[in-house]
């Protein structure tokens, strides 16, 4: 092909820039924090309940920010509702084979569940006095149902952005089916990291923080494996990374966001009391750089 590695090289870049990078980051946090909060609610200790509450408290504001970013990124933001209602017929607009269409509905539905869990977290922490709100999260039946359905949508919101990129014809994005998986796992790692950071800031000492930290290390190791698999699966398109974005991916994501935090977790005495905070902060930064390199790296091809 005259030195061109893939037919995807003949497409035009969509000009998805910083707003989309931030959207992917906050969307990942919204879905990931909710997902982890549900896990803690169902499988954690009773004394870890504030940690799950923290997850719900992070999720909803992040989702609101995501929605704003996504709307502002449209060239015609006042027509954002066209994603949900067909403007010519006023019928519901839904295409199960279009990740952007399913994603729009998922954001809306997840928003509802995230809001309910957010209310329950506020009631749980005494910030609102409506006692009924406490029933909106486990261990009760209603709370259990809300968390399970919300958790499923949280997973979708965290990962659909990667599938959306794969269901295009752009180089890198559409040359591998692993982006969705990478984004789901990364959403979990950055969300666990943010929850650890905020828990440390609040000087919480519940045992769940250590569990969360341990989980983050495992998830980070898995993320590294999937990132390598993603790069290998690109085949000849791998050479698209022979650019400044490849350097950003290597240094910012692999080294700074993965290898250094994994090393810090392995050698806990290196930074003493700052070890856990530094590890979480680096994972969070690495997760942002991952999205930046993937979005802007493909834009630059």
């Amino acid at each position, binding site marked *: *092909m*005259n030195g061109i590695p893939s*037919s*995807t090289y*003949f*497409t*035009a*870049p*969509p*000009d*998805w820039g910083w707003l989309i990078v931030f959207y992917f980051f906050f969307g990942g946090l919204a879905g990931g924090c909710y997902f*982890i909060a549900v*896990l803690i609610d169902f*499988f*954690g*200790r*009773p*004394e*870890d309940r504030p940690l799950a509450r923290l997850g719900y408290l992070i999720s909803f504001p992040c989702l609101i920010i995501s929605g704003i970013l996504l709307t502002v990124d*449209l*060239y*015609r*933001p006042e*027509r954002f509702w*066209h994603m949900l209602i*067909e*403007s*010519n017929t006023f019928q519901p*607009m839904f*295409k199960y*084979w*279009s*990740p*952007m269409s399913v994603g729009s509905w998922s954001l809306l539905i997840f928003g509802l569940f995230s809001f309910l869990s957010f209310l329950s977290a506020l009631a749980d922490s005494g910030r609102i006095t409506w006692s009924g709100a406490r029933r909106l999260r486990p261990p009760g039946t209603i709370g259990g149902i809300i968390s399970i359905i919300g958790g499923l949508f949280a*997973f979708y919101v965290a*990962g*659909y952005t*990667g*599938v*959306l990129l*794969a*269901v*295009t*014809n752009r180089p890198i994005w559409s040359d591998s*089916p*692993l*982006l*969705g*998986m*990478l984004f*789901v*796992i990364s959403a*979990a790692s950055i969300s666990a990291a943010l929850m650890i950071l905020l828990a440390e800031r609040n000087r919480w000492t519940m*045992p*769940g923080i250590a*569990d969360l930290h341990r*989980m983050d290390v*495992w*998830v980070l190791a*898995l993320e590294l494996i999937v990132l390598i698999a993603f790069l290998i699966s690109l085949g000849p398109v791998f050479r698209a990374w022979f650019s400044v974005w490849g350097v950003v991916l290597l240094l910012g994501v692999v080294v700074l966001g993965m290898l250094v935090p994994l090393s810090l977790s392995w050698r806990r005495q290196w930074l003493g009391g700052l070890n856990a905070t530094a590890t979480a902060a680096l994972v969070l930064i690495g997760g942002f750089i991952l999205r930046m390199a993937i979005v802007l790296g493909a834009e630059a091809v």
Partner: protein
Amino acid sequence: MNMAEPMGFYTDTTVCIGCKACEVACKEWNQLPSTNGGQNTLSGDSYDNTRRLDGLHWRHVKFVEQFTEDRGEGRWLLMSDVCKHCVQAACLEVCPTNAIIRTEFDTVVIQSDACNGCRDCITACPFGVIDINPVSGTAQKCTLCYDRLQTGMEPACSKACPTDSIQFGTISDLRGRAQKRVEQLQQGGEKRAYLYGADEKMLGGLNSFFLLVDKPEVYGLPPDPKMPTRNLVPGTLFSMLGAVLVGLIGIFNFRNRGARAREETRL
């Protein structure tokens, strides 16, 4: 919708002279504004100053220069590029607002009043045809002069083409004409002549297909364009696998200790 016979373009690149009458006719009929306040910037290395298809340029005459190092030998390949109006259209498939429709002429049209400028179609089009029109803030491309077709008129570009490089008609008629032209060229010694996108193998068939005399990539065309949804099922399954693995890691880390704590509380 009453289906008329599928209509399209057949572009014979061997008779294109690069006059750009098609570009001008397209701009004029579709009232597409000039760029840069009417002062066009020159590419500086080619007579091709349009450079690519975008929201304001729905026709683009490509100038491909093939010269030896000493410029002793060479040739120009000229091709008037346009939306391919694919039978299996990637842009239409992914559009989340149904702004992109298939018309009764089997052509693909973007309804500007329904588009919200999400740009998913830009990422999906394997030919890099679609872009945002900065005036309307919506994605735009060739409509195959849908308004002219509805009144029985020929599209502006093919009407203006002085060499019949761009031919308009029913797809069945155009394919017949194109095949005869390939045979004529091959009998005359141009063995490289072939049709790009004229049969169903490429995205179900391109309703705007081309006669080429070199590899597709030389003309900036993908040799093997694909539908974006090829990654939908594997991408979703791998994502689910990712979620299951994360879930298992989470359960493994919280459950043992949580169960032990609950047991201790009970005792």
